[in-house]
């Protein structure tokens, strides 16, 4: 079988201890929670850190807490726990759904929401064994200089594939990040960059500790859609999260749409609120929004699935998301 490289495994019990280890071994260390993404990536020699800092023993990172204003979800809460949490199901159904659609049952029990938010970008030329990548001549994201998705491209366009991050954007979630210089809170909308090589704004030594999700207003509705080949296991071929704020007279006050699994970050589509504001959410409006989304979305050949078809599925997902909201 594929073998892992040798590494030292650390088991801190507090966030401070974890940060200290990340700083101590800076440049040769990675945090590991569920390991469901990192371990296969290490087997593919995409990462070969000499030290792994396990986050599983840190109690303060595991809780899911609810207060009047919203939820604080520990970064190492398992995807399965969030997906089944009765409070989350009631108040944050789109997030619970996104969690429930990640991979399969066994991996959801191991995999964590923080790990999913920080999921490495994915590409058909990158998520392969060392033998395969070497035969290719490597790529821009790892060990090479050429992009094979966009020939001649100088910017990595590996696909952002984190279902939960897509769902968290229209929820206006905030990420609590702790590092050697203390902690900071960053809105998830400002967390991602378009660089597929490393698309998270996180400094070495920093850890995502928890996710704060404000309680949605009572006249707000969310929907999350995932396009995948099988009813289990698969990463998204397309992700869509939609939020509609209704006014008291049931007109659309604002409408946000986030699409992902195309380029390297979850993209908030433009103009949606402008088009929809002050109107009834009718079939005609839904169709107009679907066409607008289609115009703005351009999936790439970063996965071995027909990009033209994926693009054609954008309006389908938009219609399904908005129909779900009007139902």
């Amino acid at each position, binding site marked *: 079988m*594929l073998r892992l490289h040798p590494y030292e495994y650390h088991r801190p019990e507090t966030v401070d201890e974890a940060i200290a280890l990340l700083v101590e071994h800076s440049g040769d260390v990675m945090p590991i929670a569920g390991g469901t993404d990192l371990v296969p990536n290490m087997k593919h020699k995409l990462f070969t850190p000499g030290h792994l800092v396990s986050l599983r023993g840190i109690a303060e990172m595991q809780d899911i807490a609810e207060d009047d204003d919203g939820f604080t979800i520990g970064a190492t809460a398992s995807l399965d726990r969030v997906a089944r949490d009765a409070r989350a199901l009631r108040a944050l159904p789109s997030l619970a759904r996104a969690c429930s659609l990640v991979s399969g049952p066994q991996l959801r029990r191991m995999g964590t929401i923080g790990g999913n938010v920080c999921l490495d970008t994915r590409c058909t030329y990158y998520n392969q064994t060392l033998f395969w990548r070497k*035969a290719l001549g490597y790529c821009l994201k790892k060990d090479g200089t050429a992009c094979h998705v966009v020939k001649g491209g100088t910017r990595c366009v590996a696909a952002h594939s984190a279902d939960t991050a897509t769902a968290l954007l229209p929820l206006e979630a905030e990420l609590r990040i702790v590092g050697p210089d203390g902690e900071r809170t960053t809105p998830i909308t400002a967390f991602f960059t378009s660089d597929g090589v490393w698309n998270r704004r996180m400094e070495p030594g920093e850890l995502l500790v928890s996710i704060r999700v404000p309680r949605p207003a009572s006249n707000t509705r969310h929907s999350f859609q995932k396009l995948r080949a099988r*009813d289990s296991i698969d990463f998204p071929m397309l992700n869509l999260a939609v939020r509609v704020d209704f006014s008291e007279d049931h007109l659309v006050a604002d409408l946000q749409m986030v699409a992902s699994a195309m380029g390297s970050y979850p993209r908030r589509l433009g103009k949606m609120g402008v088009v929809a504001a002050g109107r009834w959410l009718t079939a005609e409006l839904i169709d107009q929004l679907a066409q607008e989304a289609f115009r703005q979305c351009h999936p790439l050949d970063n996965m071995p699935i027909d990009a033209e*078809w994926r693009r054609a599925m954008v309006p389908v997902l938009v219609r399904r998301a908005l129909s779900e909201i009007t139902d």
Partner: protein
Amino acid sequence: MHPDELNALQRTGADDPAELETLGADDFRVLGRRNRKPEGLRKGTGREIYTDDLALPGMLHAKLLRSPHPHARIVSLNAQHTTRIPGVHAVITGADLPTPYGIIPWTRDEHALAVDKVRYIGDAVACVAAVDEETANAAVEAIEVEYEELPFYLEPEEALTDGAAAVPIHDARREGRNGNVTKKVELEFGRVDDLMRESDVVVEGDYFFHGTTHAPIEPHCAIGNVDADGLLTVWSSTQVPHYLQRELARVLELDVARVRVVQPAVGGAFGGKSEPFDLEFCVALLALRTGRPVKLLYTREELFYSHRGRHPMSMWYRVGASRDGKLKAVDARSLLDGGAYASFGLVTTYYSGQLLTAPYELESYRFDSTRVYTNKPPCGPKRGHGSVQPRFAFEVSLDKVAAELEMDPIELRRRNFMGTGRTVNEFRVQSNGFLECLEAVEAASDWKKKHGKLAYGRGVGVAGSCYISGTNYPIYPNEMPQAAVQVQVERSGRVSVLHGASEIGQGSDATMAAIAAEELGVPLGYVRVLSADTDLVPVDLGAYSSRETLMVGNACVHACRQVGDVVRASVSRTLEIPVARVRLAGGWAFDSSAPADDDRRLPIAAAFQLAESEHGTLGALGHYNTPKEGVHGEYRGGTIGASPAYSFTAHVAEVEVDPETGFVDVKTIWVAHDCGRALNPMLVEGQMEGSAYMGFAEAIMEQQVMKRGTPEGGLHDAPSLLDYRIPTSLDCPEFVALIVEAADPEGPYGAKEAGEGPLHPSLPAIANAIWDAVGVRMDSLPFTPDRVWRALRDQADDMGGNRHESTIREGG
């Protein structure tokens, strides 16, 4: 021994004598029942021992260096320095194994390690044995190879060009030929051109099968060991121990009598382990070189390179029929994309035409099949070898003929039923339950209320097929039996069955155990089975072409009846019952005319002891060879595809197509299969469901394809189980298995195959159901959502035009 004494013997496991009353003269006691497999609990509880579970003292681990180029000459290879790495024991290259091999004796074109040239990305180049896998991997990385890259051909059409012939993948065997052609077969039966002209309806179309691999759970694994006397043993996850033993001896230049092959439990094979592989030669030679046991376990990625899966096939079919639906002429052309080596390709090329001629009566038939080398992992036999692709093209063609004639597609098939007798290519069919299969799926699926009548998006489709129960001739020409079984009866009542069949999950051990229990009257739990060890059990040629139940089963019956006759004779004399009335069943030997009579029965162990006292140790060898007279035509190639008995299948698939996304949700597949006689209905149903599943998976999802373009050309698109998608339980339709039994005189108790035939109709039945659902013809596999979406889009663009090429001729 006095009968009273015998009666006192242990009766554990014997049936209640009262139950024997219900036994008719030919009722089965064990066969025909849903008995558990002997290995079932071991597998279910994780206690089964597979090759990789074996560890021998001092065992080394081997790794292969594989080619990063699709086609290249090896200019230089520097490997010996790696033996200086601590922990590395030996390294071998192509120069160490110069003898070519191949499963088909006429096309030996492979080397365990590349000699001079590599022919696909993943072709093995060198092999290192070290103390552990990490060290072996490091040594493999340190090997230096200089390649001169050659032009490579990823499609058969490219390999057939004159330019490609100038730099062929394999040297031409004759001057002036293109070395890239493995095999070409052209056969014609009857007046195809005349009858095509006379047909009232002619349907013509191009079809494409894309290529799939087996994806067994267990990766290939082999261990080589040389004992103190120099005897070589290779444990391997193979399905052909006998052929492997022969090829190991030939390539390693050893006396075949000094080579032993043992097949531990195999975790799935499906045809992907039915020939010798690089790893088996490498562990053998490395064991000989180092004097230590050597293990090599493929990574999942390596399975996609060793491959031998179903050939991509481009097919052209023209089918002519009369106005009343009778088939008059079938004309077929197929181009097989073979990958880098021949494997079973010679047979595949024949099978792509020869196996199409039942269950329908074809008045005339012609096929022209060409297999071409390409710079891709080699294709070979996958469940339903060679005939799944043409069956798809043909059964979709039949659906089009039915549509043209506005005839129910089941009715069309019924009208063309051949019954028993000779196929157009002269195969002898002695049993044929295809009509019952059609009736079973028609009734179970509620076909008449559904076909053409469901709402847009939902549809049903039907397809039929035929398959072989073993090949009439072995792979290397010889007159010896194809299968043999040794049965030993022990005085405790235990029966041992030693047979050569390869248990690969299909149930050959269970079948032999059940036959022995039935024939010798012991409870199933008293039978021990030892199989697939070339030193200890009689020969069998292996688990391929669905041959085990019929061939090894017949050999087992032959052995058991010899022993049974001896036991019955002894019981007859002792109890003074006519021998014809002595029955062995349910743990007893008894008078079949008075089963409940205490004075006229003995516990079976007592009967065995009686017989052993009179005759000496009880045991017998049985064998089976195929009939040679009158089973096939005498033309060149007429033996290939000939089988002692043929199985038949019909499927109805019901699908729901999402017209927006193109996703095809297969709701139910009703599978009716004529297996002759179900020796264990549970195992037969398992094979039917598993086959239908595999066909469904190939139709909907699975794709073994290579990337094109520069520099990625020739790289496998998805060499992992994440990206090579096989359907999960959530993606599966409901499978409804309907057993049909048209007993065949050649089969044991009438039994025929069940492990491959039921795969074929899945693909065309789903295609035909998609047509019924949304009115598009999916002539090109697979039916992934993007492809169905495109077909629907093209249909919308083309509304009002012809939906497929066909012509109805006036007159006749």
